[in-house]
């Protein structure tokens, strides 16, 4: 087989000129061409027909065995995936069965640290309403305490204050839960 040097993707002259001056580039080009001719002068070794046939036969065998092994491979893959899925599901179910029932209040309180629970600094803009409610609640508590201690004197004014207090409590409670 005669091999032609056909490096389509390059312009050797341009490449050489970018690396050497014009004179050097020409010299290097000639030397490379002379070297290439040396290779071309000698006959390229050929694989024998049996060798080529063996290569082709190997590929044919690979293709045939690939087709035969594809289905069992898919089945094995699906079976393995199903086993993993079953094992994971069983594991999750076992975990749920054996874990103690969560106590919501406890879990929530565990998630809030002590500093956060009492710190006014943690209030954001959206929590201002809550602060107002808390302040009102505190005032009402004071009022209730005063009523209980009979600070206002007579029975009538005392019962009126209690009613008023209760109404306020209900209002706050309703507003609070309505957000």
């Amino acid at each position, binding site marked *: *087989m005669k*091999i*032609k*040097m*056909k*490096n*389509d*993707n*390059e312009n*050797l002259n341009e*490449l*050489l000129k970018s*690396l050497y001056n014009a004179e050097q580039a020409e010299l*290097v080009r000639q*030397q*490379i061409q*002379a*070297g*290439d001719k*040396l*290779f071309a*002068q*000698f*006959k*390229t*070794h*050929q*694989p024998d027909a049996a*060798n*080529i046939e*063996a*290569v*082709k036969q*190997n*590929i*044919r065998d*690979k*293709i045939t065995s*690939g087709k035969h092994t594809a289905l069992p491979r898919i089945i094995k893959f699906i079976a393995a995936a199903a086993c993993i899925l079953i094992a994971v599901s069983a594991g999750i179910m076992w975990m749920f069965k054996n874990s103690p029932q969560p106590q919501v209040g406890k879990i929530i309180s565990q998630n809030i640290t002590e500093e956060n629970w009492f710190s006014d600094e943690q209030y954001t803009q959206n929590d201002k309403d809550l602060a107002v409610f808390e302040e009102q609640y505190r005032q009402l508590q004071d009022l209730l305490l005063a009523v209980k201690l009979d600070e206002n004197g007579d029975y009538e004014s005392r019962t009126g204050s209690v009613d008023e207090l209760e109404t306020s409590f209900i209002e706050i409670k309703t507003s609070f839960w309505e957000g």
Partner: protein
Amino acid sequence: MKGPMSQDEKLNSVIAGCKKKQPQCFERLVDMYASRCYGYFYRLSGNADTAGDLLNELFLKVYQKIGSYRGESFNGWIFRIAANLFSDYIRQKVRYKKLLDEKQAQQTYADSDPPRREHFAADKLDLCLSRLEPELAELITLRFYSQMSFKELAKLRREPIGTTLSKVHRGLNRLRELMENENKNEKR
């Protein structure tokens, strides 16, 4: 009516068939590339059996990896696999030789037989290539058989294009000198 297919179109159609694992397309690919790849292996190994084995391995690799071919230069792609295979072969040979040397060193008697030549020069070019630095011999052989451009060679070797060009230039010059010396020796 469609005109005759260009070489590139033929190659692309064969590659598309190979990706679909069509045996006749692989056979065509073997017909298209076997000579050049065998020549590359033969020139570097200097042994027909080794070249045949490497050729077989090469096409099995091509069969396995054809799915990962993304439309770059096919010459570059197939000869990159060939070059890697040859490097593996050399590494394996070096390991084997090391083991053999260690075993021989353990022997109490001196082996009187001269060491067998590993490289059987089929012609003058083979002989001179075997005397060249292995890296340069491999590079100029790869360039000739793969027909890759300097740009592709530089990319394959992960080095600047100027370095590749300079190595090819040096290798070919040295090869020419060796051939001239050989010619002079023949005349004497």
